[in-house]
């Protein structure tokens, strides 16, 4: 129905702090009900972009539109956004229910309406029985849920999560990722997550925006982001890869032949002959067995790391280059350290990126 209508639109938003550019003409469109992650290293501008959407940071240029309204110059308390902070920022002088009720109270809602909304929000995060507790009496995971309930209770047009799960320990965080995604889909919330955790980004989002130096390098569905990284930065930031530097010998219709330290390799990409490039492939594409029309390179096994469902094999291919292969449990014999092996991988899964973009 209204699925395709843009719900949140960020148009050419820029922000500078002194001489440092934090956001560099960011464009982002989020559909109603969509879960989008801003993924990037610290300092990439992801938190500033989130704060610009919330109204907590004023952009120097550009526009922000939410639910068909230009909110660029609207103060935060009139934007109808919900923010879950990394530190949760729960009010310590109020109870759990008092925190969840806060947004409705300051909007002047009727008491009966507030009570019903608080009960609904708390039961949604499975804390219905803790309404009377003080914040300091809660565990970190429970505080996280209260912060979520508080943000949801006002039925905001968009929910913004600023590294909201990063304070939890690993196991709890992974559980919350799945639960949070289910919960947000249940209430049909539009949400933006800010994180530096690629697993969180891939698990929680419909689309991921990889950010670097104040720009969005790639905005794509998690699967596409992993399989078809648009830049060397996106490749490096999400998942593991083999990366070999070389020089383009010949280019032909989206394909290039590259001379590298480990031999001649073919890759997808558009470059002129003579360009310096990085040739890359995901580790699960590298096999010990021969593959037809494939790149291949040989070397000595440097390390073998068993990780349960998969085994990572790192091979020293000489000339300072190394290869990383991920062997699944079905791949049969696993090589041992110091074995001489040859790895091959399909050309269609090999990418070339310009050298200078390396971070």
């Amino acid at each position, binding site marked *: 129905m209204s699925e395709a209508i843009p719900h949140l639109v960020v148009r050419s938003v820029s922000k500078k702090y002194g001489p440092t550019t934090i956001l560099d003409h960011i464009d982002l469109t989020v559909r109603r009900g969509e879960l989008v992650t801003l993924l990037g290293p610290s300092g990439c501008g992801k938190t500033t972009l989130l704060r610009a959407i*919330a*109204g*907590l940071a004023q952009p120097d240029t550009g526009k922000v539109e939410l639910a068909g309204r230009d909110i660029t110059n609207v*103060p*935060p*308390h*009139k*934007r*109808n*956004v*919900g*923010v879950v*902070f990394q*530190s949760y*920022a*729960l*009010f*310590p*002088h109020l109870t759990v229910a008092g925190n969840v009720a*806060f*947004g409705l109270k*300051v*909007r002047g809602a009727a008491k009966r309406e507030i009570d019903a909304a608080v009960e609904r929000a708390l039961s949604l995060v499975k804390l219905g029985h803790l309404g009377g507790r*003080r914040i300091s009496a809660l565990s970190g995971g429970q505080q996280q849920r209260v912060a979520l309930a*508080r*943000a949801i209770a*006002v039925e905001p047009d968009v929910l*913004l999560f600023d590294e909201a799960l990063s304070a939890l320990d690993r196991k709890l965080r992974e559980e919350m990722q799945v639960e949070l995604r289910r919960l947000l889909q249940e209430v049909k919330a539009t949400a933006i997550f800010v994180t530096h955790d690629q697993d969180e980004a891939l698990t929680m989002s419909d689309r991921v925006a990889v950010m670097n130096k104040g720009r969005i390098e790639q905005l794509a569905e998690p699967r596409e982001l992993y399989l078809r990284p648009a830049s060397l930065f996106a490749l490096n930031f999400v998942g593991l890869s083999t990366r070999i530097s070389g020089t383009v010998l010949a280019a032909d219709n989206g394909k290039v032949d590259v001379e590298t330290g480990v031999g001649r390799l073919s890759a997808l990409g558009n470059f002129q002959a003579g360009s310096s490039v990085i040739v890359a492939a995901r580790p699960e594409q590298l096999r010990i067995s021969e593959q037809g029309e494939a790149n291949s390179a040989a070397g000595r096994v440097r390390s073998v790391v068993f990780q349960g469902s998969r085994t990572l094999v790192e091979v020293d291919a000489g000339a300072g280059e190394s290869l990383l292969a991920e062997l699944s449990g079905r791949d049969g014999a696993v090589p041992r350290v110091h074995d001489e092996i040859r790895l091959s991988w399909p050309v269609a899964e090999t990418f070339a990126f310009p050298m200078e973009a390396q971070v």
Partner: protein
Amino acid sequence: MTEAALPAPMAAPSVDRERLAAFGFVLPSVVIIAGVFALPLVLLLGVSIVDANGLTFAHYKRLLGSPYYLGVIWNSLRLGLLTTTIAFLISYPAAFALARARGALRSLLLATLFLPLAASVIVKAFAWTILLRSDGIVNETLIALGIIEDPIRMIFTETALIVGAVNIFLPFMILPIYAIVAQLDSRYAEAAATLGASPLVTFVRVILPLTLPGIIAGVALVFSLSVSAYVVPTLLIGEKYPTLATTIAKAYLLTREPGFGAAAGVVLLAIAIAVVTLSARMSREPK
């Protein structure tokens, strides 16, 4: 290593040992407080209700029954309340400014706050008399600038008293509030804003309650200091504004009525304790 060598028997008595150690740590302060504080207070109470003929409440009747001494008590309360209120109004925004300041400015502001604490109250009160007297710096300046023709009477007025008291006790209000404000996470205000609270509502519902412990500490300190101040009223306003503190001094030093002085001391103490207890209770119970 054999089993006998393991320090197993240590486990049980260690709790008692910890308690004993804790007791040892507080013992010196208990001795000092009991010896130089609690004991004299009990004696003070005793002197105020016992005279040569035995038990008597005559001193309290005189103190609480005459319009003059009720006026004295009111003067003390008025000094305490005015000083505390004005000091709070100045200190609250100042504490925020101090917490926001960075680098050299912050060091400078903190220094201006701490340095006066090193000077004696007498010195500071005298400094005010020099500033405010008829041929003082303030009057001379105003006359030199042609703003006034004759000196304004400033010293020995209630205004002078309150101005001096606020100035002298100000650090005791700013510092406890600053200590709370400096630790206040700016995310609280941001969270309130995103939940729909205007800056004013955020202040009333979030900032004020969260800084309340600092306010209460500052109010308790400044009130108990100013309600019992002796030097400040003596130097800045004198005889015409008798307070409980000056009455006590007069009873002991001039009229030689230790029983009456003790009773005035007990009343003053009761006022101070009431205010401190009340504020301690307020800070313990979040609304």
